[in-house]
């Protein structure tokens, strides 16, 4: 309803069946950054996610049916644009991203140095241990994205990212559907927006399962690679 600009910072948490962890994630962000608004986009969960979130101070938006994490994040971006937020931050509901590190990805966006900042597990001395298969997958996409962006990107699939107003306006209109993180970087680059990485630590997930199981890994690789190739051909206005 309020449509004023520069209203502040919004944390967007896409949630699909995250009843175990989401309350803690919200509590930690509230404690660490009390001035930041929190929006949970419940993407048609079948568990108690919605009821759990209603007990917190977070705002809750509910999809009538499951549309995938990309659509959930995009709903968050649409909300952020509509309500005039200047920065939106995507945080995973599984507790992998640390509230204490929010300031690291916000700072470069607030200062205007970057349009989008991605928290990377692999910059600096993180203690993140990926499985071999996942390591290979991430490494592969890191190379692909680095080549396209003509600059070193180490963690293109990280969902811990801060998005400035310009990028918000763009991504609220066009955002990939499933496994959107890598593709979004390519789209942002084509739009001519500046992407930077900062080193962050990632905790092991506290509950739920990764959206990418080994069996889906191959599908993930092929789908994202295809999507990136198509994106390179797309006309970006």
């Amino acid at each position, binding site marked *: *309803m309020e449509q004023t600009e520069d209203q502040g910072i919004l944390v967007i948490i896409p949630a699909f069946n995250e009843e175990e962890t989401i309350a803690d994630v919200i509590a930690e962000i509230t404690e660490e950054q009390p001035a930041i608004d929190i929006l949970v*986009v419940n993407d048609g969960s079948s568990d108690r996610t919605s009821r759990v979130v209603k007990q917190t101070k977070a*705002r*809750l*938006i*509910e*999809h*009538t*049916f499951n*549309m995938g994490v990309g*659509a959930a994040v*995009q*709903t968050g971006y*649409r*909300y952020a644009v*509509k309500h005039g937020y200047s920065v939106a931050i995507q945080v995973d509901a599984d507790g992998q991203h640390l509230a204490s590190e929010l300031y690291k990805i916000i700072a470069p966006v607030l200062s205007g140095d970057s349009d989008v900042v991605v928290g990377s597990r692999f910059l600096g001395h993180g203690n993140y241990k990926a499985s071999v298969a996942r390591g290979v997958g991430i490494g592969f996409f890191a190379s692909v994205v680095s080549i396209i962006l003509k600059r070193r990107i180490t963690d293109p699939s990280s969902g811990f990212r801060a998005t400035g107003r310009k990028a918000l306006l763009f991504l609220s209109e066009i955002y990939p*559907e499933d496994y959107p993180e890598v593709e979004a970087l390519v789209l942002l680059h084509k739009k001519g927006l500046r992407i930077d990485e900062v080193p962050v630590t990632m905790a092991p997930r506290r509950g739920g399962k990764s959206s990418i199981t080994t069996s889906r890994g191959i599908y993930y690789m092929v789908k994202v690679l295809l999507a990136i190739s198509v994106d390179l051909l797309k006309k970006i206005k």
Partner: protein
Amino acid sequence: MVQLISIIVVIILFVLVIDFIRRGLLKEKYSVLWLALIAVVGLFAVWRELLDWAAMVVGVKYPPSLLFLMAFAFVLLILLHFSVVISVLTERNKKLAQEVAIIKDELVEVEKRLMSNKGVNQ
């Protein structure tokens, strides 16, 4: 014989398409490609000399197979058309669902404000 079967199939298809349009099950917009298929395949099925000539021109030894080739090409075109239509619909459906989700949230907010205003007035 093949010619007869082709004509019968085309006639059945034509009746079905017209009936679906009449009953509002098929939008005119999406019937164009079907009607084009019926017209072209129907024409070649009825007019045997035209089919023989066309087959000779493109080097098809057994003319009726050209009929199937034409029908197949149309079906491919129709399928591609549907894929495009589905993609557009999916995108619109997503946008609608997102807008509804956001508006629902705003509605709750407005209701809350209304309720609290009432409380003040009473």
